[in-house]
């Protein structure tokens, strides 16, 4: 009697441990709930992309056929061919790389310098400038949009890449304030004694910046490079406003996303070319192929550098040390 009771208790404990777990290990029940949640939310996150991809490979006949939902009846990539022509893909891709890369490089330099000034030195009005820095992050850029347009026009940099390069060089590019704060965090962690030792060895202010602080701030440089690149790459509105000004479509700088917004308008002229009517009117399949193509370069970049992107938030020191 007593033995069976003990057995029953032991079994109950074991079951409890299996279901609810203990300190070292999750129980089965907890695990099942957690993985179910994570997997279903993960699916929800990926759903738009899967949906987009499945539509992008449908032929016009499949699109109209309500019995075809996810899997096409035949594999065809005509949509992609048409989308490549419409977006003027490789030309646009090269322009997009220029727009994203060159301002990013300048932005790294200017934000590193400003971050260093705040981290290393004590100087008059430091608090004021730091408050101003935070302020530049929270004011919406739209407020200065109109006069900036006029200013660039007067400076003669409207309609060329300079309209992006000049602000990046002056530490006022896209989200520069965030990058300055990241560099500030990194430069601050360099121990004073290291700089002082270098000073005794005869290093000046400039060389201790280049030869001690910058090499130690490599993670911050990576974060700035990646995110600045992505944010410049994804900008549509200001590219249209500042870079597209006064240019025809072919000579102006443009991005894949900007071309995506013009997809409908550029489809017929791009496909027809020689004055023939286009083979098919633009349909969802072709549009989705275009959308797929427009996110493809960054998607590939993300796939390769995924770890650096995801770990950047840890490294940026946003959560404090």
């Amino acid at each position, binding site marked *: 009697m007593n033995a069976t009771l003990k057995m029953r208790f032991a079994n109950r404990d074991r079951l409890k441990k299996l279901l609810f777990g203990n300190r070292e290990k999750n129980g089965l029940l907890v695990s099942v709930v957690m993985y179910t949640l994570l997997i279903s939310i993960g699916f929800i*996150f990926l759903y738009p992309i899967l949906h987009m991809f499945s539509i992008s490979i449908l032929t016009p006949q499949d699109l109209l056929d309500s019995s075809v939902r996810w899997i096409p009846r035949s594999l065809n990539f005509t949509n992609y061919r048409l989308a490549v022509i419409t977006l003027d893909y490789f030309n646009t891709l090269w322009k997009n790389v220029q727009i994203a890369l060159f301002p990013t490089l300048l932005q790294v330099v200017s*934000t590193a310098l400003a971050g260093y*000034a705040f981290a290393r030195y004590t100087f008059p009005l430091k*608090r004021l400038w730091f408050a101003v820095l935070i302020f530049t992050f929270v004011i919406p850029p739209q407020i200065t949009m109109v006069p900036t347009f006029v200013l660039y026009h007067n400076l003669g940099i409207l309609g060329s890449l300079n309209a992006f390069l000049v602000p990046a060089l002056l530490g006022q590019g896209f989200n520069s304030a965030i990058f300055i704060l990241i560099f500030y965090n990194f430069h601050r962690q360099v121990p004073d004694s290291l700089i002082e030792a270098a000073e005794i060895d005869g290093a000046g202010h400039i060389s201790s910046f280049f030869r001690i602080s910058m090499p130690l701030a490599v993670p911050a440089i990576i974060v700035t490079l990646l995110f600045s690149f992505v944010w410049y790459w994804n900008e*549509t509105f200001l590219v249209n406003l500042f870079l597209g000004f006064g240019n025809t479509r072919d000579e102006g700088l443009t991005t894949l996303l900007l071309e995506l917004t013009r997809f409908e308008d550029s489809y017929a002229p791009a496909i027809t070319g020689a004055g023939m009517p286009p083979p098919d009117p633009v349909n969802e399949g072709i549009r989705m192929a275009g959308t797929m193509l427009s996110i493809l370069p960054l998607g590939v970049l993300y796939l390769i550098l995924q770890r650096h992107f995801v770990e950047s938030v840890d490294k940026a020191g946003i959560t404090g040390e």
Partner: protein
Amino acid sequence: MDKKIKEKRRWKPSGRTLRNWVYAYIFLAPWLIGFFLLVAYTLERSFYFSRQIVAITPVGMVFIPHGFTNYADLMQHTFFIQNLVSFVIQSALQIPVIVSFALIIAILLNGKIRARGMFRAIFFLPVIIATGPVMNELTGIGAATVPAVNTAAIAGALSFLPPMVQSPVVSLFGQLIMILWNSGIQILIFLAALQKISVEQYEAAKIDGASGWECFWKITAPAIKPMVFLNAIYTVVWLATSGQNPVIDQIAFFMHSGFYGYGFASAAAFIYSGLVLLLLLVCFLILRTRKEKVPKLVKRLDKRNW
């Protein structure tokens, strides 16, 4: 004689300090020039424009002083006001959804799970690829919402609400995925904060007999509260500048339209920015963390660098 002593007593920075100041400003110079030219100057111009009628003529821009009439006119502009109101309502709905969703995901990811890296990568993916044009295309094919969510049914169930509140709530469900797509950075910020809490702290609390629920409120919640504030601010700034925001398009429309012009657009931008700052202020007032009492010594040490 007296004068000389007085002069000597006046504090003068040493040569070294002075040199430090000079170098600090050398390093800061590009940013400072940028600030004066591209922020301070343009802000001032923007305010000036907003009180003018700006006409573009062959000889250049002509300014006609207009007082605050642009602002008054905008207050009468039904379409603009409608956009502003819907922006505020949508933000007020989306911010709590995004922040709490991000927190739940972060807590899940912080648990003892396998393939954390893969899940993190999936949740962060939209940060890279979610942009206005792509979102518009996806909304166009109905990929913005979970297929199981029936918006018509939700609209029916919420019909007791006034339409001003009901339609944003319904659209919240209709665009659920797109809203969740905005939470990538927030998830990682929460996750980084959660991983900073040491396991020992939980274990000590468990030994003292605290339940999981108590641990959450006594250990986890205080650690992530500042991050809630940070994430709310980030979400406001993100939504305010996102490519899907109709107010921004409208300001650009005012700018390029011959009828409205630069002055009107500037005034609109000022009103909009004021509203965004107001939203940030509300977030600050609701979510700010009271300053902890820092021992004086720590404070003094901290001040050294300032």
